[in-house]
């Protein structure tokens, strides 16, 4: 059996494959949140958006038979949630962190409510590209079955990096995030910029959710997301609001999240739940190491309430 010949190599291989599979939702949510936070607002509600995206993608894919239509629906749902967040936040004296918490609860509740009839049926899933065709080792082939969404996410990261740096659109978002007054003085509506940034952020987070229900784990149930959304929001802080760092950080987190199942597959089951908590512990540890009470973080948008 190949399993025996690989021996302990199964674990790093599974972690590697897991890093690619599990990191995709982290990647999309963190890139989306990166856009929103660069515009000077934080959206903690992306946890709810992720779950809503997963549910609507599954539902639309089941009804239409096309998983890509599901992905689109998830994105649109996410953008609507983003618009809701931005809309409420643009009222005077409303706190964006609190609105995020509210939308986290609303999104999860709404997804569970509307998704009740979707637990039983099986929807069409997203296809994967087989990059491991040259290998005979089944574990390696499994690890190299890569979803297109992951590749799209990987492509978005440098694109976003470039857009922030070199385009007018990126400059506007950064201006709104660094100094709302400056953006206003330039004659732009800060609220409108933030509305768009939050909607795009929600769109990406919704797509991240569609990956959960349509590829990995690839079904809809109420335990589908347990904090991936909020972990990804924390990850943006760790990544210093840099889309490329978001990519590397997402891969690291995906690997950490894959550790529990990987160890279980070679028969190490004790401490399974603790290994499953690895991404949260890692997030917390990284935040402890990288944050400082004395100075604001380098790269932090000045208007962001969370780095006050």
């Amino acid at each position, binding site marked *: 059996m190949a399993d025996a010949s690989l021996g302990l190599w199964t674990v790093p291989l599974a972690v590697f494959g897991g890093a690619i599979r599990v990191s995709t939702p982290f990647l999309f949510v963190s890139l989306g949140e990166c856009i929103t936070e660069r515009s000077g607002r934080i959206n903690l509600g992306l946890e709810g958006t992720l779950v809503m995206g997963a549910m609507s993608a599954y539902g639309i894919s089941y009804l239409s038979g096309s998983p890509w239509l599901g992905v689109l629906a998830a994105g649109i749902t996410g953008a609507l949630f983003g618009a809701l967040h931005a809309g409420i936040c643009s*009222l005077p004296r409303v*706190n964006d962190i609190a609105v995020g*918490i509210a939308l986290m609860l*609303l999104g999860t509740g709404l997804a*569970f409510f509307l998704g009740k009839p979707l637990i039983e049926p099986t929807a069409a899933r997203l296809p994967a590209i087989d990059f491991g065709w040259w290998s005979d080792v089944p574990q390696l082939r499994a690890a190299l079955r890569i979803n297109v969404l992951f590749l799209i996410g990987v492509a978005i990261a440098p694109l976003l990096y470039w857009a922030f740096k070199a385009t007018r659109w990126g400059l506007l978002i950064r201006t709104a995030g660094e100094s709302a007054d400056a953006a206003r003085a330039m004659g732009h509506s800060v609220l409108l910029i933030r509305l768009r940034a939050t909607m795009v952020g929600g769109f990406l987070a919704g797509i991240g959710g569609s990956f959960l229900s349509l590829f990995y784990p690839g079904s809809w149930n109420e335990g589908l997301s347990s904090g991936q959304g909020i972990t990804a929001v924390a990850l943006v802080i760790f990544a210093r609001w840099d889309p490329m760092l978001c990519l590397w950080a997402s891969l690291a987190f995906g690997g950490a999240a894959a550790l529990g199942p990987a160890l279980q597959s070679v028969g190490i089951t004790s401490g399974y739940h*603790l290994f499953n908590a690895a991404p949260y512990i890692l997030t*917390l540890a990284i*935040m*402890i190491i990288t*944050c400082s009470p004395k100075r604001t973080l380098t790269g932090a948008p000045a208007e962001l309430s969370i780095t006050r």
Partner: protein
Amino acid sequence: MTTEAAESVEAAGVAPAADPGFLQRTGASIEYILIPGAALVGALAVFGGFVALYGKNPLDLYFYMYYGAFGTAFSWQNTLTRAAPLILTALCTALPAQLGMVIIGGEGALLIGALSATSAALALQGAAPIVVQTAMVIAGMIGGGLWITLSGGLRQYRGVNETISSLLLVYIALAILNHLVEGPMRDPASLNKPSTREIGAANMIGSIPGTDVHWGLVFGLVAAVAAYVLIYHTTFGFAARVAGGNIRAAKIVGLSVGKLILTVCFLAGSCAGLAGMIEVAAVQGRTNANLAAGYGFTGILVAFLARQNPLAIIPVAILLGGISASGGLLQRRLGLPDASVLVLQGIIFVFVLASDALYGRIGFLKGKS
């Protein structure tokens, strides 16, 4: 600096405390009832519309919600039983809010409190019930308290955002609970639902005489009143509110902000830990995954709806306890999914936050003051 101070107070949704005149104070207090009330009505209307889209009659919905929450003696008891942990988990958000902190990890402190209380009870098997119960209260409060102190300490000494860290700690607490309950602390006899051993019937805290409502409600009421007195009628509470309003001013007058943050976070966490202890000692009788029933998350909503005022938390907790108590009836009579309570809670939360924009803007209230 002053605008910054005002912002940080509003960030936590704390009602401005200083009122120049009596008339204005009455005007303001009418506002604090009228605006959340209107938000609640608006949320119920939207939820009714949502349910109508789902093909159910909204009037039936309102009737069953009322009936399931406050219609009979049984539903009142169900409501009050659920209100008890909600008061305590709401305090876990409301106390740090006085310092301008947004803590949303009450669920984690509840779970750790439940685990600590259960461990204490299991370690003291055979002792007199009153000893076991006291030990459970102390262990639960210390466990939950330290859990939230962790978030407070990280904020104070490492600058880690407390909202995110407290939420991450919820997932870590859940993992610890699952690990212990399925591993080292598992009762071999619990087959389908991994649980710890039972704390023993003699050690359970019973019901208030003449009712089916357990003593946890009294714990909650006492904690809320104590928190109110602490915040509004002691030097400590005053110092906390000063620090919440303006950290630099607090440092200039010589307040030790770090100590304040840690103490308030400990008190907040110990409230949620006490809620966990109550759920074990009055309802479940043991620790298992049933404890993660979302009381911690609903508590956040209670605190915001009560505008972080410990006394206002009591009626709001009863109201939201009622909403969750009516969930079962909505499921049975109207065929709505059990998540409908979550949806309604989310809608209420959104409305309450949006209504923050209305304060000081209602014409006829302004005229009065």
